[in-house]
């Protein structure tokens, strides 16, 4: 039996469809169901639907053997897990963005609004820039527009929200995509099951 944590939403549904296509399907599964756990009758796989930001927690604590998690979450929380494959799904980028006419005045600490404080601190520490973090939980684009921050550090997919709010990308910090992650203990005790799932998933991704 292998336990899989899937992120609720489109990405999780896409990953489930891929896993089902290579033999990990569950008769109980329905995208409209509110059930959070479903298993197959043969007892080979258990799925959990969890909040995308919590997938790494479930895997690190061993409730799930493997899970699918965005690279942004892995960079932010640095969970103690193995990162076994880049699923090349949910592609986007972690970027620094600001108002179109913004210019960095290096004399003062840079005010950075973000949902990803650790990622922002790490990035600016590497380039030696003094910053002040403003931790927000949503609508990050609003912060420079209303003047509470100079820049934002956030995920940019198409850039539409930025454009519509008169912002633009100034720097790309890293590329983001969904990753297959694995609990370190499960990697040892369920090695053949974990590797079989990874290889089957990688195979179908190549064909995708």
């Amino acid at each position: 039996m292998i336990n899989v944590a899937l992120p609720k939403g489109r990405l999780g549904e896409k990953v489930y469809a891929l896993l089902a296509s290579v033999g990990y399907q569950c008769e109980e599964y329905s995208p409209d169901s509110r059930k959070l756990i479903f298993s197959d009758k043969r007892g080979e796989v258990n799925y959990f639907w969890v909040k995308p930001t919590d997938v790494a927690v479930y895997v690190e604590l061993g409730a799930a053997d493997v899970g699918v998690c965005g690279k942004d979450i892995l960079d932010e929380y640095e969970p103690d897990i193995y990162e076994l494959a880049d699923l090349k799904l949910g592609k986007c980028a972690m970027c620094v963005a600001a108002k179109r006419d913004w210019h960095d005045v290096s004399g003062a600490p840079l005010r950075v609004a973000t949902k990803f404080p650790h990622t922002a601190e790490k990035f600016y520490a590497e380039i030696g820039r003094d910053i002040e973090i403003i931790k927000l939980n949503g609508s990050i684009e609003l912060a420079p527009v209303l003047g509470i921050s100079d820049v934002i550090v956030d995920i940019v997919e198409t850039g539409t929200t930025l454009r519509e709010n008169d912002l633009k990308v100034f720097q790309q910090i890293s590329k983001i995509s969904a990753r297959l992650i694995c609990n370190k203990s499960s990697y040892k005790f369920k090695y053949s099951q974990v590797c079989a799932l990874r290889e089957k998933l990688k195979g179908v991704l190549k064909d995708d």
Partner: protein
Amino acid sequence: MKNFRREENVTEELISLYESRGFTRYKPGCFEEYALYQQNKDFLIGKNVITFSGLGGKLLAMRPDVTLSLIRHTEPNAVNAEKYYYVEKVYRQAAGSNEFKEINQTGVEIIGNIDKVCEVEISSLICDTLSAVSDGYILDISHMEFIEGLLECFGPYGGAMRDFLGRKDIHDFYALAERQSFDERLINCFVTAAEINGEAEKALKIAESIVLNDRMAKAVKELKDVCGYLEKAGYGSKININFSIANNADYYNGIIFNGYIEGVAHRVLSGGRYDKLLDKLGKRGGAIGFALYLGEIERYFVSGYPEIDYLVLYDDKTQEIALDKAFELKKSGSVRLARRVPEGICCKNIIDLTKEAAI
């Protein structure tokens, strides 16, 4: 997990194991000067330490680790090796928690002239230690010189490579390798090293085929020696070679270990050769040891209800009779006196003195 009623039962078994091998118990005090931990923060599992001012004004700390105290208070023998074990409480963040905890920790250290015998002795003692907790265990073995020898080939990218190796993150490694146009052989060696996971003989043959320098070659030879003995001693099926173990290179310099138990999400044991720590503390010689984080796996132990032979129930009128009854019953078994049946207790016989017929 074996069917232990309590964590204390495991500790008793481990104490008798270590004493049967001639190890001496080390009992440090609860406090240590904070400077010892501040100067060696990277050696500690958690970076946070509970501090307070001593009466003389010195900044003291509640001990987050035992090894540092042991090294500080020991003068290594140039010819022989001193052998210690400890069963102590340490004060640090527990795995998966955001608060300080008092954690029971058991460990073994050999300090002084460390040779092959000491390395094999520690490795087999780790297997026996894990086996005392559960038959379902795996011991991950790696070697710092193999890892450092590999990483030095990547020059300024060694730090990034260390992260990739620790996470078995091949895909991000490939992306960097493509951007930096790394040599094809170097790429293959790194990917092979990151994917090695398995029984010693086969894994070390693969490791031998990707050796790039003397450091890596020496490490493979040492691992072959130790694992060869472990195989002969019957531990072969429990040994797993894995170069993704990440111990701090400023302290560790040889063979390193991580122990896992089936059903426990995180490692329960870690250790290795740490001559560099002795050097940092101004001592000569070598050291090797390990710690078992017993306190962090206590919730996995089977905690059956405590069982007593007689439960004597009494009320205000029957207090004296209850005391006499208990005194009499003590001769034939365990007795608990209570006003009503307590929760969480399993009792074979209930004598209810509150009912007249029982008196």
